[in-house]
C-alpha cells in the first residue's frame, strides 16, 4: 500500500497587502476585516505596555506575542462564544478577543491568580506554561461537547516546540480516532526559545503530524489574519457539526525574545530577524484596507489613541489592585479546607513576613 498526502498552504493577503486571489466569503465585505485589524493593534499595544511594565519592575516575566497577532486574533475571531479556548502562554490577542480583560492579563503576568479568574469567557482555560500539557485538556473538553451532543468545539493553540512532545501525539491520536470536535492551531513562530524548527524535527511540516493521526491538516500563512480566520472557522464549523478534529499550522515568526527573561541575540542575529519584519501581520492589512479606501491616516491615529488609552487605563487599574489576602494561598487548594491545612493556614496568617506588595506606581 502506498500512502500519499499533501499539505495545502493558504494565503489571502500577501505581505504587500495584495489579494491572492480574492477574499473568502466571510470577508466578501472587506469591512469585516477592520475589527480583526483593530484587535491585532490592541494586542500589540497591550504587548508593548506589558514589556514596558516589566522593564520598570512592575510586571513579572512576560512572553511577548510581537509579530504573531494574526494567529491569535484570526483563530479566536473564528470561535463562537460557547466554544472553549485552550491557549498556550503567547496568545494574548486571542484571550483579549474572547473577553479576557487587559487588567486580568496583567494581573496574571504580574503574579496574581485572580488574573485567571476570567469574568468573561468562564469556561476558557488559563494559559498553560508546561509546554503541550494543555493539548490533552482540549481533547477532554471536546469529548465533553461530543458526549453532550452540543454544537460546540474546543480550540487549542500550541507552539512549534510543543509538537515534539508526547502529549501532542497522544492528544492528536485520540482526537482523530474519536472524531472529536477540536481544532489544533500550531502557532509556528519557528523558535522554541533558542531551538529553530529545523533542529526541532526532520518532518517537512508540523501539519503532517495531524495527518499521521488521521486528522485533516493544512498550513496557512500565520501572518495573514484572513487566512487564519478562514481556515479556523471552517475547521471549527466542521468540528461542531460532527466532522471531527482538524489541525492548522499557522506559520509566523517570533520577532521578540522568547520572554522578557530571554536574550535572543545569544542564538540568532538581527540580520536573520529583520527580513521577517517585512512579513509581519499588521502592515499588510493596513495597506490592504487603505488601498481599498476603508482606512485612513485619521482612522489609524484614532485607533492608536483609543487603544493606548484603554491599555494605559488597564495598567493603572492593575497597579492599583492590592495583593490578595495570605489565606487565599489555602482557600482554593480544596473546596473545603482539610483540618491538616487549617493548621498550616493559621501558621501562614501568623507570619510576620511581608508578602510582595503589588508593584507600586512609580512617582
Amino acid at each position, binding site marked *: 500500500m502506498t500512502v500519499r498526502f499533501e499539505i495545502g498552504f493558504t494565503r489571502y493577503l500577501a505581505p504587500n497587502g495584495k489579494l491572492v486571489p480574492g477574499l473568502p466569503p466571510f470577508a466578501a465585505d472587506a469591512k469585516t476585516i477592520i475589527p480583526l485589524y483593530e484587535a491585532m493593534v490592541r494586542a500589540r499595544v497591550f504587548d508593548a505596555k506589558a514589556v514596558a511594565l516589566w522593564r520598570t519592575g512592575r510586571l513579572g516575566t512576560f512572553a511577548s506575542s510581537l509579530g504573531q497577532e494574526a494567529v491569535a486574533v484570526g483563530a479566536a475571531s473564528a470561535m463562537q462564544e460557547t466554544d472553549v479556548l485552550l491557549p498556550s502562554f503567547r496568545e494574548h490577542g486571542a484571550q483579549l478577543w474572547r473577553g479576557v480583560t487587559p487588567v486580568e492579563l496583567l494581573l496574571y503576568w504580574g503574579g496574581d491568580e485572580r488574573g485567571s479568574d476570567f469574568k468573561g469567557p468562564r469556561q476558557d482555560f488559563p494559559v498553560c506554561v508546561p509546554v503541550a500539557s494543555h493539548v490533552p485538556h482540549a481533547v477532554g473538553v471536546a*469529548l465533553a461537547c461530543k458526549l453532550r451532543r452540543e454544537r460546540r468545539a474546543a480550540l487549542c493553540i500550541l507552539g512549534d516546540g510543543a509538537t515534539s512532545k508526547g502529549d501532542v501525539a497522544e492528544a492528536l491520536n485520540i482526537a482523530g480516532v474519536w472524531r472529536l470536535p477540536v481544532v489544533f492551531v500550531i502557532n509556528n513562530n519557528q523558535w522554541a526559545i533558542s531551538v529553530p524548527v529545523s533542529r526541532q524535527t526532520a518532518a517537512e511540516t508540523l501539519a503532517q503530524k495531524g495527518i499521521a493521526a488521521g486528522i485533516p491538516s493544512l498550513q496557512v500563512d500565520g501572518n495573514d489574519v484572513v487566512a487564519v480566520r478562514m481556515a479556523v472557522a471552517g475547521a471549527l464549523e466542521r468540528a461542531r457539526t460532527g466532522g471531527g478534529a482538524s489541525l492548522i499550522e499557522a506559520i509566523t515568526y517570533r520577532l521578540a525574545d522568547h520572554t522578557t527573561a530571554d536574550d535572543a541575540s545569544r542564538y540568532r542575529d538581527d540580520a536573520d530577524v529583520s527580513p521577517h519584519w517585512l512579513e509581519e501581520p499588521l502592515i499588510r492589512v493596513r495597506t490592504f484596507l487603505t488601498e481599498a479606501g476603508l482606512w485612513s491616516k485619521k482612522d489609524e491615529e484614532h485607533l492608536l489613541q483609543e487603544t493606548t488609552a484603554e491599555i494605559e487605563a488597564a495598567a493603572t487599574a492593575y497597579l492599583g489592585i492590592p495583593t490578595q489576602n495570605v489565606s487565599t494561598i489555602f482557600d482554593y487548594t480544596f473546596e473545603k479546607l482539610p483540618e*491538616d*491545612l487549617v493548621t498550616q493556614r493559621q501558621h501562614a496568617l501568623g507570619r510576620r513576613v511581608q508578602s510582595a506588595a503589588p508593584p507600586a506606581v512609580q512617582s
Partner: protein
Amino acid sequence: MAELKMVQSINLALARAMEEDARVLVLGEDVGVDGGVFRATEGLLGRFGADRVLDTPLAEAAIAGLSVGLAAQGFRPVAEIQFTGFIYPTIDQLANHASRLRTRTRGRLTCPMVLRSPAGGGIRAVEHHSESPEAMLAQIPGLRVVIPSSPLKAYGLLLAAIRDPDPVVFLEPTRLYRAFMEETPDDGAALPLDSCFIQREGSHVTLVAWGAMLRDALGAADLLAQEGTEAEVIDVATLKPLDEATILESVAKTGRCVIAHEAPLTAGFGAEIAARLAGRGLTSLLAPVERVTGYDTVMPLPRLEAAYLPGQDEIAAAARRTMSYK
C-alpha cells in the same frame, strides 16, 4: 447483603456512582469490552453504554489530561491506569493541572476526577506492576491520595472519592483484589476522606499501616496479643490530607509506634508520620518510632518479591523492640 471480594466492591461502587450521577464516566485502557484487566469495570459497558464507559487508546498522559478537560467541563471522570508502573506519565497532569486548576483559577474551573490504579506487590506480577508510589503522589498539593484496605473500605472510599469535588488518586492494593471477602452492603454510604480508621484498639503500642500492609499489621497484633501486648492498629486509608490527630491521640495512649508500608524507606509516607510524632507527639513517646518498610531498592522481580515485602513478623518484631526499649 453479600460477601464481596475487593475487586467486586470496587465494581459495585463504580456502578452505584454511575447510577446516581450521570456525570460520572469510566475511562481507561481495556475498561470497556474487557472489563478491565483485573475486571474492576466488568459489566459497566453493557449497563451504561459506550458514552459512559470509554476504552481509550494506550496513552496514560492523555487519559489523565483529557480527564482534566472533562472535569473542567463538569463531568466526573473516573480514569483507570492499568498498573502502577504506568502511572508516572500522569504525574505531569496531576501535579501541574488536576491538583491546581481550582487554585489557579480561584475556583472558576475545578477538577473533580478520580484516577484509579492497582498498586503494590505480592501477586508475582511482571516487572513495573508492583510499586507503591503513594508518597510521591502525596507530595502534590491539592491532590487526595486514598488507599483502601478491604472490600468495605474500597466501596465507601471510592464512592466518597467520586463524589468529592477535587481530584483523588485511588490506589487499589492488587493483592487485596481477591484476597478475602467482606460483607459489603450496596447502601451508597461513603466513608470519610479525612479520617484514619482505628481498626483494633489496644493500649501498649500503635501499629500504623494502609492498604495491603494493614492485614500484616493486624496479623502482627494477633501475634503480639499472644504475648500479652495489646496493639492498637490504625488504617491511614486517606494518606493525604492526613488525619494526624487520630495517630497522635493513639500514641499519647500507647507511647510506642510502628509504621509499616511497602514503599521504600527514604522519604516514604512513614517518614511524614514519624516526623509528626517527633514534633507534636514527642512527649508521648516512650521509645523511638519504628518503620517497617520496603528497601531503597528497585522492586525485585517475583522470585525475590517475598524477600522485599515486609510482613507481620517484621512488624511484630519492631513492636517488641519498642516494648523493650529502655
